[in-house]
C-alpha cells in the first residue's frame, strides 16, 4: 500500500511537471503570435503613411521616379503577403532599405525638407518606424523564448502541439540597410 502511494505521488509530480511544460510551450507560442501580429499592426500604419509621403515628395523630387516605383511595388507586395509570415517580414525589410534610400535622396531637396506637410509626415513616419523597431524587438524576444522552450527537454516533447509556429525566423535587417552611410552626403 505504502509503495503504491509513493508511486502515485511520483506519478502526480511527473504529470504536474509535464503539464506545466506544456502550458509554458503554449504560452510562449501565443506570445510569439501576439508579437507577430504586433508587427503587422505597425506595418499597416506604415502602409497607410507611404502614399502620403510619396504624394508630397513627388512634387519636389522629379528625378527620383525609380525609387517611387520600387517603393510602390514593394508596398503592394508586402500588403498582399500573408500577415505574420516570413515573406511579409522579408518584404518589409526590403521596404525599410528602399525607404532609407528615399530619406537620403531627400537630403538633396532643401525645399522639400522644409515643407511643412513633409515635416509633419516625416515626424509621423519616424514615430511609426520607432514603433516598428519596438515591435520587432518584442518579436525577437518572444521568438527566443519560444525557441528555448521547443528545443530544451522536457518541454521539447510538446513541440508537435505548436507546429504552426515552428520555423519562424528572427528579424534581420535588409542587406541594403547594412551599407555604411557616407557622412559626406549629409554635409554638402
Amino acid at each position: 500500500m505504502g509503495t503504491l502511494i509513493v508511486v502515485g505521488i511520483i506519478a502526480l509530480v511527473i504529470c504536474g511537471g509535464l503539464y506545466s511544460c506544456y502550458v509554458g510551450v503554449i504560452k510562449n507560442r501565443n506570445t510569439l503570435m501576439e508579437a507577430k501580429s504586433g508587427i503587422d499592426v505597425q506595418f499597416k500604419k506604415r502602409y497607410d503613411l507611404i502614399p502620403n509621403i510619396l504624394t508630397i515628395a513627388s512634387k519636389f523630387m522629379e528625378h527620383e521616379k525609380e525609387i517611387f516605383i520600387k517603393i510602390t511595388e514593394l508596398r503592394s507586395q508586402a500588403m498582399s503577403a500573408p500577415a505574420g509570415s516570413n515573406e511579409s517580414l522579408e518584404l518589409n525589410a526590403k521596404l525599410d532599405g528602399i525607404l532609407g534610400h528615399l530619406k537620403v535622396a531627400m537630403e538633396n531637396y532643401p525645399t522639400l525638407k522644409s515643407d511643412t506637410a513633409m515635416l509633419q509626415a516625416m515626424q509621423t513616419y519616424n514615430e511609426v518606424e520607432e514603433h516598428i523597431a519596438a515591435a520587432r524587438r518584442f518579436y525577437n524576444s518572444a521568438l527566443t523564448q519560444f525557441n528555448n522552450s521547443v528545443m530544451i527537454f522536457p518541454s521539447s516533447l510538446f513541440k508537435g502541439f505548436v507546429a504552426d509556429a515552428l520555423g519562424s525566423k528572427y528579424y534581420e535587417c535588409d542587406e541594403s540597410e547594412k551599407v555604411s552611410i557616407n557622412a559626406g552626403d549629409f554635409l554638402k
Partner: protein
Amino acid sequence: MANFDYSNFDKIYETKIYPELAPLEEERKKLIIQCAVAIVIVLVLSCILVYLSQYVEKITKVASIPWALAIFYVIARVNNYKQTIKDKFYQKLFNSLGFQYSSGSSSESMITHICRESDIFNRYDFVESDDKITGEYKDLPFTALDTYIYYETTDSKGRKTQHTIFRGILLSTRINKPLKCDILIKEDKLFKAGSIKDKKVVRLEDPEFEKYFEVYATDQIESRYILTTAFMNRLLNYRKMKKRPVEVVLNNNITTDNVFFFVKTNKDNFEVPIFHSILDKQIFLNILKELTDALDVINELKLEQNIGL
C-alpha cells in the same frame, strides 16, 4: 554628468547665509554640550538604579525610562536645530540654482498615491517626507522629495519593528516622448515576479541591463518604444556612475508628471550634520549636490529630447 553653475551659490552664501551663521554655530556647540550632559546624567542615574536594584526589587523595570527621556530630548533638540537652519537658509540656498524649497510633509499623500497607483512596492504602511524642492531643469519641470517609506511589524510580545522599503529622493518629472502604457523598472531581485497586477514582465535584449533591472509593462511594444537600447544604456550608465539603486515608474495617469525616479540613498537627505561646524561652506554645497546628483538622471537620460530617448 551635468555641470551646474554654482557661481550664484558663492554670492548668496557670502552675502545672505554666512553673515547669519555665527549665532547658529554657537547654538550648535551649546546643543552638543547639553546633549552630552543629558547623556551623562542618565548614565549616572542608570548606575544608581543598578546599584539600588540590589536592595529594591522591581527597580530595574524603570531603569529604561531615563534613557527613553534622554533620547527623546536629544532627538527633539537636534531636530529643532536642523529645522531652524532649514527655515532660515534653505530657500536662499536652493534659489541660488533657481529652484524653490518647501517642507515635504504636504506631499506625503501624493507619494502614497504614486506608490499605490504604480505598484512599485508590495507593501508599505507609512510615507514620510520632510523636504521638497521644485523647479525647472533643462526646460523640464521637476519635484524632488526627500522620502522615507516603511512598514511596521509587531511580534508576539507586541514589540514594533520598522522595515525600510525606500529611503532616498523621489524625483518626478516629464518625458517628451508620447507615453501610452504603464512601465515599472525595478532593481533586479532574486525572485522575479512573472507579472505585477496588469503589468507583464518585459524581457529586454541587453543582458547587462537585465542583470540590474527587471521591467514590467502593460504593453510590450509601447514599453520597448520608450525603452530603446539608448535609453537602457543611459539608465545603466547612471546606475553605475552613481552606484545607487534606482527604480523608475513611467505612468501617465498618476499626476501631471509622467516619470518618477526612486533614487535610493539610504539616508535622510538635505540635512546639516550636527557634529560638524556649520561655518563650513562645503556643508551647504553638499546639500545642493545631493539634489544635483538626483537631477543628473534627467541629463543622463536626455529626457528633454524627443528623438533618441
